[in-house]
């Protein structure tokens, strides 16, 4: 068994910054992460690219390269670090420490922590279009991960479809790396600039992000990649794998050849651990996803359990770092490791930075609104990939009397497969909300139960500290 002041889950911007900050206050820290090296998804394989593939830093860009210094700061912090480790249960007893069960190195280890910081970040919103289960259809983040981690890229013809900053960034990265893209199918609804304009004055506080966005838009425009606008009714077609993509663009039907189709409709908090430990969540209508309720200290409704970074609401990497810093300082103060006045000055500074970084969010939410069609889905399109449950079946469960996702799950097995609802949870909530004519908050979300990751028999049998 491992006893620690602060257990942090996730080694992205929020987790690394929190670990380094907490160490400066003298807390003992354990950071647990699924990846083999620190950086999270945004700085995935940063150490490897710096040491082994420095040429790739050129097209991955300066914001990616900036992760190297963060990883270095974290490595030097003296925090304990378990890479390639999976938290499969997190328990919140009424009194005393929190317990995490972690599969690491073939054994399940028990971690007892006075406080827990969940820095598990975001996941891409699942995009349930017809044909999205065909081999060759992936998320844009998946392709970007393969490019960062392995220098792998999809062969032509490659089509990107969706909306938002990551689509822009990846298209520009591919172009800079000489990777051909056949077409970008931009699903952003018409009038993005008009929608964004009212939010511009406040967003100017985050001018760095705005400039980066403008630079990316210009780079895509001058790249020569064909861009189809106002795309709707997207479909992936093919027998054994994707062969063609069909959609409407400005009302006209477009059909394009593709052996890889990459989808992206923004990112949403990864809800698994905050749901498992019973944190309260609220629906965010602008971003069409649930957020865990957080105090301004970053604490959830479960005392002693904090969230930092995109897992608490999407803000991007710089904001994640500041929420990580704030949470670490608040936790240090609560555990008596830092005295109030010195901690408060640091927190005020971090909050000021955070305000500037969050200032662009309303503009981005307005320009790139989340898809409005997911809650309207019906017919054969698969909602639950694991158990192959269609949108029609989910609507059928409503007719059979299912008031919420947990009853729909019992009726249909949707959400009962290996991904435990990660890929269908939001869609099922949206469809049920639409069918019942209720708000998603009234519909709720799947109950998440342990183990939240597959545990092998060996990992279960070998539980350390069980004696």
């Amino acid at each position, binding site marked *: 068994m491992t006893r620690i002041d602060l257990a942090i889950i996730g080694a992205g911007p929020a987790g690394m910054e929190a670990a380094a900050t907490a160490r400066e206050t003298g807390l003992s820290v354990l950071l647990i992460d*699924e*990846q*083999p090296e620190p950086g999270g*998804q945004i700085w995935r*394989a940063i150490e*490897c690219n710096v040491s*082994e*593939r420095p*040429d*790739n830093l050129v097209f991955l860009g300066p914001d990616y390269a900036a992760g190297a210094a963060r990883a270095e700061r974290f490595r030097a912090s003296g925090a304990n670090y378990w890479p*390639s480790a*999976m938290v499969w249960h997190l328990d919140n007893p009424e009194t005393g420490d929190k317990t995490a069960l972690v599969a690491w190195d073939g054994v399940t280890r028990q971690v007892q922590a006075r406080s827990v910081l969940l820095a598990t970040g975001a*996941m*891409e919103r*699942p995009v349930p279009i017809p044909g*999205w*289960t065909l*081999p*060759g*259809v*992936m*998320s844009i*983040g*998946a*392709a970007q*991960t*393969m*490019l960062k*981690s*392995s*220098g*792998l*890229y*999809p*062969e032509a013809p490659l089509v990107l479809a969706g909306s938002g900053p990551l689509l822009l960034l990846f298209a520009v990265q591919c172009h800079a*790396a000489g990777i051909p893209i056949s077409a970008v199918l931009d699903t952003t609804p018409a009038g993005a600039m008009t929608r964004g304009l009212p939010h511009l004055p406040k967003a100017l506080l985050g001018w760095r992000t705005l400039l980066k966005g403008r630079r990316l838009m210009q780079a895509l425009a001058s790249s020569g990649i064909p861009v189809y606008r106002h795309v709707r009714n997207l479909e992936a077609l093919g027998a*054994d*794998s994707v062969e063609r993509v069909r959609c409407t663009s400005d009302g006209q039907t477009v059909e394009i050849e593709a*052996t*890889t189709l990459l989808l992206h409709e923004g990112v949403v908090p*990864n809800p698994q651990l905050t749901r498992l430990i019973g944190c309260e969540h609220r629906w965010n209508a602008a971003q069409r996803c649930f957020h865990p309720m957080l105090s301004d200290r970053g604490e959830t409704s479960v005392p002693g359990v904090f969230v930092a970074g995109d897992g608490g609401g999407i803000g991007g990497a710089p904001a994640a770092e500041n929420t990580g810093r704030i949470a670490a300082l608040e936790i240090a103060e609560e555990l008596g490791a830092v005295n109030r006045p010195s901690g408060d000055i640091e927190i005020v500074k971090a909050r000021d930075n955070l305000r500037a970084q969050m200032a662009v969010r309303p503009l981005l939410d307005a320009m790139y609104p989340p898809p409005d069609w997911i809650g309207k889905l019906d017919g054969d399109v698969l909602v639950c*990939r*694991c*158990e*192959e449950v269609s949108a029609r079946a989910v609507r059928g469960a409503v007719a059979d009397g299912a008031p919420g996702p947990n009853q729909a799950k019992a009726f249909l097995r949707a959400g009962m*497969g*290996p*991904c435990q609802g*990660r*890929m269908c949870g939001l869609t099922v909530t949206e469809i049920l909300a639409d069918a019942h004519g209720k708000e998603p908050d009234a519909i709720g979300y799947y109950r998440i139960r342990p183990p939240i*990751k*597959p545990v*092998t*028999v*060996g990992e279960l049998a070998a539980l350390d500290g069980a004696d």
Partner: protein
Amino acid sequence: MFRRLPDPRARAVHFTFDGEALTANSGDSVAAALLGAGIEHSRTTPKSGTARAPYCMMGVCFECLIEIDGVANRQGCLVEVRDGMAVRRQQGAPGLPEDLADEGGQ
């Protein structure tokens, strides 16, 4: 199909997929190694037997579930490929290991 950018410092890793010898680069996840070697689908679904391939590459979608060295249901995108690994396509729902099925009976 995937291709690789030039990587002069890469070290080759040799593994098998359903008995066939394949090569990857060190640092690849099993899921990336298979996509890089031209393996189009890495599992079939338990319900309809449809072919599936990795979707998210970050541990969320579970489409990359695969058998590695005799252990089923591993997340291929979260396991680093190693020399000598025996990887097998996961067909449908893998059964419980025999010893557990005998003991638990459920």
